[in-house]
């Protein structure tokens, strides 16, 4: 793993070195094609399908989203021209003054405050335990990964059954069961969704931590135990700092995935209910943009959401990344 990392680093830099080596040779001896396109122009041909794909479904829609957010955009049948007036920042102002949008951002905040720390703590602890386990290793790995590989739509069905008014969870809790029940309780709807997503995604983060744990030098554990550190002490002073890069990645990924929540509030709480208490920004993007036909508003909301998430992710990288950044 560590050897492949250094090798990867070399390869990433190598394209920048190429022009230098190219210029060193007499230019006349090299055909025009390879002078313009590089030593092996066939690379362009091999990369072309991906490049076309990335331009058609990524770069162009990205630019289009920004363009649309400045217009009062209307849906029209193919070929029909409808006036789509330029409205400047109106869409952005409408988004930022919309109480439903503000509520949805608050909901996501609640979600992230529960989901992100829970994800980091549980995945690092379970990965550390799994890493040392000898028996039933495959069985345990499969059990933790299996919610991650299963469709949200299928798992939502079971959670509706488990956490419904007369569901098994309430039956087990008996008099402790919340009233109104989990998914129809304004205070508990978002935390329940956060719990669902933590459970569903945890396997993926355990996988990332397991990969990172293979890179923690064994000598560090040995010298920690020579210094008299027990397993708990060496977890905090060797494992946790050793997998810091993975922690930053887990923080950032779980934040990005959490901020883009859609399926769970749409299905688990019947469209962000009760009374918008579990509505997410992406759910509002769908309702306003596609159901109600205001794609300009939805695009502006999407851009604001993405920028907000990017800022949070960069802050996480800055503060959790530590000195080695």
């Amino acid at each position: 793993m560590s050897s492949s990392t250094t090798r990867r680093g070399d390869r990433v830099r190598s394209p920048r070195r190429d022009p230098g080596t190219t210029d060193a040779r007499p230019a006349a001896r090299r055909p025009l094609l390879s002078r313009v396109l590089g030593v092996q122009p066939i690379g362009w041909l091999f990369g072309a399908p991906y490049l076309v794909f990335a331009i058609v479904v990524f770069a162009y829609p990205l630019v289009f989203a920004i363009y649309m957010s400045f217009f009062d955009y209307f849906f029209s049948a193919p070929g029909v021209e409808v006036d789509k007036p330029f409205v400047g920042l109106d869409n952005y102002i409408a988004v930022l003054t919309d109480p439903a949008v503000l509520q949805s951002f608050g909901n996501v905040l609640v979600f992230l405050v529960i989901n992100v720390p829970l994800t980091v703590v549980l995945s690092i602890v379970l990965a550390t335990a799994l890493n040392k386990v000898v028996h039933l290793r495959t069985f345990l790995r499969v059990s933790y990964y299996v919610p991650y590989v299963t469709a949200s739509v299928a798992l939502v069905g079971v959670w509706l059954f488990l956490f419904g008014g007369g569901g098994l969870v309430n039956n087990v809790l008996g008099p402790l069961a919340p009233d109104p029940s989990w998914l129809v309780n304004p205070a508990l709807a978002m935390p329940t969704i956060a719990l669902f997503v933590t459970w569903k995604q945890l396997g993926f983060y355990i996988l990332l931590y397991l990969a990172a744990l293979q890179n923690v030098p064994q000598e560090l554990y040995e010298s920690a135990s020579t210094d008299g550190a027990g397993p708990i002490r060496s977890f905090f002073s060797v494992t946790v700092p050793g997998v810091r890069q993975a922690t930053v990645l887990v923080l950032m990924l779980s934040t990005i995935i959490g901020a883009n929540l859609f399926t769970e509030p749409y299905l688990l709480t019947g469209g962000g209910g009760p009374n918008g208490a579990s509505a997410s920004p992406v759910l509002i993007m769908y309702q306003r943009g596609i159901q109600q036909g205001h794609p300009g508003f939805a695009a502006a909301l999407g851009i604001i959401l993405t920028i907000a998430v990017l800022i949070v992710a960069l802050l996480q990288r800055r503060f959790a990344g530590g000195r080695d950044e």
Partner: protein
Amino acid sequence: MSRTSTKLSRPQTILRAVVLGAGAILFLFPFYYMVIGSLQLTPDTSVAGAFPSPDNITTANYEAINSRINLFAGLINSGIFTGGVVLCTVVFGVLAGYALAILKWRGRGATFALVLLVQVVPFQLLMIPLYVLIARNYGLSDNYLGMILPFAINSTAVLVFRQYFLQLPRELFDAARIDGAGELTLLRRVALPLVRPAIVTAVLLTFIGPWNEFLWPFLITKDAAMQPLAVSLANYVTNVAASTANPYGSVLAGAVVLAAPVVILFIVFQRYFVSTDVGSAVKG
């Protein structure tokens, strides 16, 4: 690894086993409950209901949901959607991964940066413009092509391929080139046979994406006959289930049909779902 585990005292080892075991039960129980619930004639949400009782077992729920949404057609649609994405990813993703790892061409660094960037920008930001473009401008709603297009080449898979090709010794390629082999021959005869595990890992990773995807096919398919199973099951949950005799039973029956192919596939190929491959690819 083994040396650190010997350092654990006996109670600590037991504690670890208990934590991992309890976790595994917590993770697997909903799956077990999904199957039990799908087989119950009348929903039994009591604690005893979590254990199957012979007189309350039926396949009626499967028949009930199948009469409202065509499960088989849903599976076929999911299969075509997923198959299209996997095919495009394997063909074009391998080409791109090979170009990024082995070939020297101007623009390679920029293309690699683009692959990373595609992973960073969330699909949800692109959802509105893609909907306008694909459904409204190109008229590809209720169409397999429209479903497949935004997911056609999985960027994570491209990174997995690139990572594996990078690990192959360069001398291998230089020798074959001196023998006059073209790049396509090299890729097919030399590189691909050596990275077969990467193909399985990438196919597995790519497969779960579209098979489980809800948002995009939900936006783009309004015709029930074209909907992948995840979409028709979701519509059943939101619209139809309440009006049936055993709503949870039929929803869970649909959930079992949707979940089973991926879970079985994953268990069969789980050894290809290795931490180092996936981890290094995600980290770029």
